[in-house]
Each structure stands twice: as structure tokens, then as C-alpha cells.
């Protein structure tokens, strides 16, 4: 590997921008974020980038590297073709603030569309609960989520159709699934998922699962089971009949 590489980095803000090339020295083990930092310190101190832990744990440095949504801190240069310039651009599903930094505030509003965790009464007089490891393995998978929003970035409902206010997106289906499958939780979010969550927009292309840096099986383990709950509740004719006979037990509008 040559000791220099070129990074084609998006520079600009909401009014527009362009790619600019920066050549920098590379060394063993480097990741894309190292290269961006080096460029910052050598020639572009105002190059805007979010980052925190630089160890794949905080989910701050999401970007599109050669067109693929990735964490910059976990993308090794030896995994890229350095004979060509490496393109580094901001997540395209969100409004651009500056350079590699986007406005991800819609993600911080989405949780409020889903009811919060509400545990059942404690199992033991000392106020504690009992749960078996096998019963929490599934939601521990969901709770690995680092909120990097790469799944939101790649989701066509958000990226191409801009349904940010009608569709909470894969991250928040994972959030909802962690709550719905939590052994202690007593809430029912099915109606919210259908209405405010817009889960019907998802047509299970599994792009979210492909890009998840935590390898969460978003589509199969979170979204599909939630979709099944929505279908059972609202679209199953047999259930509708039962509801008709037994009285309107579930309010389809959701509360």
C-alpha cells in the first residue's frame, strides 16, 4: 500500500457544496476517521465532523464512505480501494448542517411517539424482578443499538420519500421491539406503531439490517414481529370477528 491516499470529502452547507480532494499520509491500522482528523489538523481545521468514542460504541461518526453508510471509526483503510479517491460524504437522508454533519433531530423526536417503558409490579417484596437470561437474550440484541442512525439513513422511506414525520424508521422499530418484548413491560404500542410509527411503509427490503454496525437483525427480529402484531390486531378478519362478538376491546385509533 502506498503511503498516501486521497479522500474526496463533501464540503458545504444547506445552500450547497462540492467534493474536495485531500491527500494525506496513511499508516498501518488507520481508519477513515483518523484520515479525517489528519486532514483537519493539516489543511482544513474547519472541516465539520461529529465523533466521540472512536471505538464503535457511541454511534456519532456515521457517514457514507464510497457510497456505503458506515461508521468512520470502524472503517479500516485496508478495507478500501486506495488506488482511487475515497469519497466521504454526510448521511444523505438528513438535512445537511455542514460538511459531514447532518441535522438528525427528527430521530430525537421519534421516541416520544411511542409509550415509555412501564414495568409490571415487582415480583419480590424487596421491589425486584426475576427474569431468565433466555427471556432477555432477544431484547439484549435490540439494546445493543448505538443510535448511529445508519439504518435510518439507508431506509428508502426516509431517504427517498422523506417521511420523517410519518414514519419513525428502523431505529425506532428496534426501540419499540425492545419495549414490546421486554418481559416486564405492560404497555401496548401496536396502535402507535401503525399510526404515528407508520410501520406499514416498511416493505422489508432489509437495507437497515445490512448496514447495522452492531449486527442487529433489525428486519427479521424487530420489524417483522411488530408488523405481525399490527396485522393481527387490525387486519385479521378472524380477530375482527372475535372483536365484533366480544365487544370493541381494542381501540384501533390507539391511545
Amino acid at each position, binding site marked *: 500500500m502506498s503511503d498516501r491516499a486521497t479522500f474526496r470529502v463533501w464540503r458545504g452547507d444547506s445552500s450547497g457544496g462540492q467534493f474536495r480532494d485531500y491527500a494525506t499520509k496513511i499508516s498501518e491500522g488507520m481508519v477513515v476517521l483518523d484520515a479525517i482528523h489528519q486532514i483537519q489538523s493539516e489543511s482544513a481545521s474547519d472541516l465539520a465532523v461529529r465523533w466521540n468514542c472512536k471505538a464503535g460504541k457511541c454511534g456519532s461518526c456515521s457517514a457514507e464512505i464510497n457510497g456505503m453508510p458506515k461508521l468512520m471509526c*470502524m472503517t479500516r483503510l485496508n478495507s478500501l480501494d486506495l488506488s482511487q479517491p475515497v469519497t466521504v460524504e454526510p448521511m444523505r437522508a438528513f438535512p445537511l448542517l455542514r460538511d459531514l454533519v447532518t441535522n438528525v433531530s427528527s430521530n430525537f423526536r421519534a421516541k416520544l411517539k411511542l409509550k415509555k417503558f412501564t414495568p409490571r409490579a415487582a415480583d419480590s417484596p424487596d421491589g*425486584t424482578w426475576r427474569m431468565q437470561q433466555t427471556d432477555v437474550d432477544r431484547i439484549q440484541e435490540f439494546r445493543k443499538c448505538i443510535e448511529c442512525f445508519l439504518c435510518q439513513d439507508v431506509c428508502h422511506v426516509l431517504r427517498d420519500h422523506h417521511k420523517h414525520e410519518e414514519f419513525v424508521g428502523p431505529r425506532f422499530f428496534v426501540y419499540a421491539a425492545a419495549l414490546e418484548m421486554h418481559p416486564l413491560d405492560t404497555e401496548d404500542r401496536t396502535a402507535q406503531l401503525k399510526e404515528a410509527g407508520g410501520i406499514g411503509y416498511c416493505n422489508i427490503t432489509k437495507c437497515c439490517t445490512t448496514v447495522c454496525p452492531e449486527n442487529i437483525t433489525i428486519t427479521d427480529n424487530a420489524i417483522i414481529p411488530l408488523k405481525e402484531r399490527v396485522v393481527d390486531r387490525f387486519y385479521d378478519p378472524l380477530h375482527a370477528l372475535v372483536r365484533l362478538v366480544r365487544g370493541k376491546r381494542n381501540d384501533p385509533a390507539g391511545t
Partner: protein
Amino acid sequence: MESFKQFDHDVLVIGAGGAGLRAAIGAAEAGASVGLICKSLLGKAHTVMAEGGMAAAMGNVDDRDNWQVHFADTMRGGQYLNNWRMAELHAKEAPDRVRELEAWGAVFDRTEDGRILQRNFGGHRYPRLAHVGDRTGLEMIRTLQDHLVYIQNIQVYMESTVIRLLKAGDRVNGVVAYDRERGEFSVFTANAVVLATGGIGRAFSITSNSWEYTGDGHSLAYNAGAALQDMEFVQFHPTGMVWPPSVKGVLVTEGVRGEGGVLRNKDGRRFMFDDIPENYRAQTADNEEEGWRYVQGDKNARRPPELLTRDHVARCIMREVREGRGSPHGGVFLDISWIKTRLKDGEAHIKKKLPSMYHQFKQLADIDITKEPMEIGPTTHYVMGGIRVDGDTQMSTVPGLFAAGECAAGLHGANRLGGNSLSDLVVFGKRAGEAAAAYATKQSRASAPQDAPAQVMSEALSPFARGKEAGAESSFQVQQDLQTMMQSLVGIVRREDEMKKALDGLEELKRRAAKVAVPGGREFNPGWHTALDLGNLLAVSEAVTRSALERKESRGGHFRDDYPEKDPVFSKFNILLRRGDNGEMVVSRENIPEMRGDLKQIVEEQK
């Protein structure tokens, strides 16, 4: 004059890691209107990186554990320089804070009978760390965050940096901040301010800490007249990655050793058996077999020497490296793969209990930790020192100013035990938030400050004005030079002549920092943000250096080559730093109040 936005709250919390989030929740539940100001997006603070777990004497795995043992362990680990009242409260309240997290949705790993599982960690007599694999910090921060966002009277100001505390007379009455996104200023008024800004690791070049750890809270408090304490005690975590260069310093959890990982030098020797300190000899295994039985839960076995306190393990590693027995890249070997010879499902066990470590080494170093040893070495991890606070309320020496978590001093003394940080955050975050709310509602309304903001804003903008001057400095370069100097002169091994050289170096760096020029605009400009962090880094670096010069002995995280032994004279006081009338840093010694009789008895019984 530069314009600014104005906001008004009862309580301001600065920082949104575990301590800040818990403080905000505590203050809001006590009825206060709360402004939570943080440098990053919500949920990204450094707490997210905590791996091993949260220490709390729940006794779920070993019923001999209780708060008294935890208290004694914390004091022993801190070499008795701890604020004993804080150590007492921490040991008593940590179990409730763990259970509270569970009630708010946290999903800890389970015991066979369905309770919260606890793991072994250095310096803890019994398995005590509630954990979720090796991503406990993520679980904590997400649980607190998801609880907080539904609370009405908390307003979160993300990606905003506080640059000055404002005072009316002796009292704190607000802050000046800028938002990173647009570079615009805000003035917040409040009767009480809780600092929860974390540590100072970015003052060193090899660190496990993120960019945020620039000692903001330490420096803000110091400049507002508060006393700092114990700043010589910086924890160098024994196990950071050493290779490849780009990940040097990234943390390798102590959980690796808790699960049976062993340290070896290049000759394959488990060198930790070679030096077991006197005060830990009775509770440390003297052979490999006993050590293994301990990590497998044998209650009659003593813990392996790999689980001695971090200060000691870090020094043993340094010794091996210095004496030529290190690994190829200047560390030693940490091996967890060997447990496959003892456990039939060893590989799966490693992946289940240490998933992030597996992932981290595989992805960043091309190492499969289930098959080969890791190369590790010490990395700057934590500062035991910080803002001097009252043990019960967390109020600093400035009325209305509180501190919790890493930026506060006292709980950990000379050395922090692993796992005691996450519990510290929520125990004292809650206390600080509630005390701040109580204080704030008792005071008359803070009035909006008039003159101070103008000066603060023009100072903050000065790096732009200097844009075209000759001899202009780059903020990144000055920061990097500071880190290199602190690492080599005030790092893990210290000497008087080197530290004096560091003080001269800091003066020179201050002059250079005053000449930093920043190109570009005010919108999300990292060069400018770094320029504004420099003042904080310089202040905490000076604080560490002056305190370290004053402590002419070796104890806990502070090791002096020229005074390699512990000196009983220095066991009687904490070292304090205050800002003098002419802006100079004043060092003083403050006697540690005598420990309450019942606590003394616990310490004796647990020896």
C-alpha cells in the same frame, strides 16, 4: 455588541453522561425546571464507553457481600484519602440505583435464579458488578436517556458548550454557552448549576477518553473560585490497546480479567504473581490454580493477582516493558483465549461475555481474541481528583455550584476501583440534582447578568479576529503539543525535574494558545471548538502538575520515581488548588477529617 439568546431555569446541569442525566432527573422530580446542556448529541457522552459494569453490593452472586465490605474495599483501593462520607453513601445507595435502572428498563445479565448477575473486578472482594456483557455504560446511558426524554420539565440543549460560569456576589447564577452548530451564544440564568462534565483525559496523548474530556467542569469551577482536590491522582488503566497506532489507548475492559484473562510477558510468565502488595496479600491467590477457581466462583478461593487494583497492575506492566520483557509493540500480553483449555464452550463464552472486545480487536487490529492474546499497555483513563464537594449534597465551595461524577473529587481517593464509576454517577448524580433543586428553590430568583457576557463572547471570538496575524498558531497543533508534553513529563512515572520542566512548558503553551488563529466561520467549526477547549486543558494540566509536585510520595495513581514509597505524612491530607487574587494557582493542604468510629471499625474488621 454580539447578540445572545436567553434562557431561564431553576437548575442547570452541564453534561449528559450518567451523572448529568441522573442529576437532571433528580432535580426535575424534585419540581425544578431543568436545563440540560451537553457538548454532544444526547446519548453519546463518555459513559457510553464504560464496559465492565456497575459496582453495588447486592450480594446476588455471593451473599457474603454487603455495603460494609464495599465501603472497606473502596477505602482500601483509594489508600484512605477518600472522602469517607462519600464512600459510605456510595456503598449504601448503589444497590438501589441499580434496581432503579432496572425499573426504568435496563436489562442486566441474569443469574440462574433470574436476578441481576454480578461479576468479579479488581479490588472488589466479591463478585459485585452488575453488567450487560461488556457494554454496561451503553445500557446505563440509554436507560437514563429514555427515561429523561419523557419528563416534561427538562429542556435539553444539545451540542452546546459552556464557556463561563456567571456569579452574583459569591453565588453562581448562570452560564454563558455557545451552540456548536451555529456558533451563536446563549446566556442561561439559574440559581443552581450542577457540573457533570467528566474528566481530563485529553490532556494526555495516550487516552481512552473522547474529545469531550477536556476538563471543562474542573476549569469552569476553578475559574469561578471553587477548590479543586486530589488532582495528582490520574488513573492510568492498565489495559489499553497498543497496536495498531491509530487505536493506541482505546480501552480493553477489566472484564477480560474478571472473566479469567491473564497477563503474560514475552517469556510467557504470569508476572503479576511476582509483586503482590502487602495490604492485598491475604486476599490474593498465590498460584494459578486458585486464581482460576476464583473466577469460576469458588467462594473459598482468593482472587488472581490480575485483579489487583489498576494503579498496581499498570505499574507492573510498565516494569515488564521497561525491563525488556514486553510485547513487540511496547505492551504486554492479555490472554483470554486460554480459558478454552478449561471451559468446553470457551469460545462461545468469550463472545457472549465480551462481545465488544471481540468485535473491537477483530475489526481494528485483525486479532481474534478467542484464538490469540491481545497486546495491551496503560492508557490515561480517569481522574480521581476534581471539584471539592460536600459529601451529602455535592455542593462545591461556591454556593449554588454542585458537581457529580468524574469531575467531582472525593469518592475514589488515590485510586478508583473499576465499576465504582458507574455507581458513582447515579448515586451522586441523584444527590446533586436533588440538592441543587432544593437549594435553587430556596433562593430568590437569579437576575439576568448584564455586563459579563459581552466580555466572555468577545474573548471567545478572538481566535477569528487573529486570523491574519503573523505567528498565528493552530489550535490542533497546540493541543497536540500539550498532550505530548503531559504524557512524557507528568504521565504514569513522575519526577520533580520533569514536572518543573512541564510547568515551564505550560507557560509557553499558554502564550501560544493566546495566539491561536482560526480560519473559517462560526458554524460547526472544530478548529474553533478546539481553540476554546485549550484554556480548560491548560488549567487542568497545571492543576495536575502542581498537585503532583506537592505530593512527595507514591500512592495510588500517583507514582514518583524520586519518592517511590508511600509516606505516612501524606496520608493525613488532601491537596487543594484555588485561584489566587492575581490569577495564580495556589496549592494548599487540607487535613482529612477523622473517620467516624463505626466506619473505622468496619475498615479494621475488613482488613
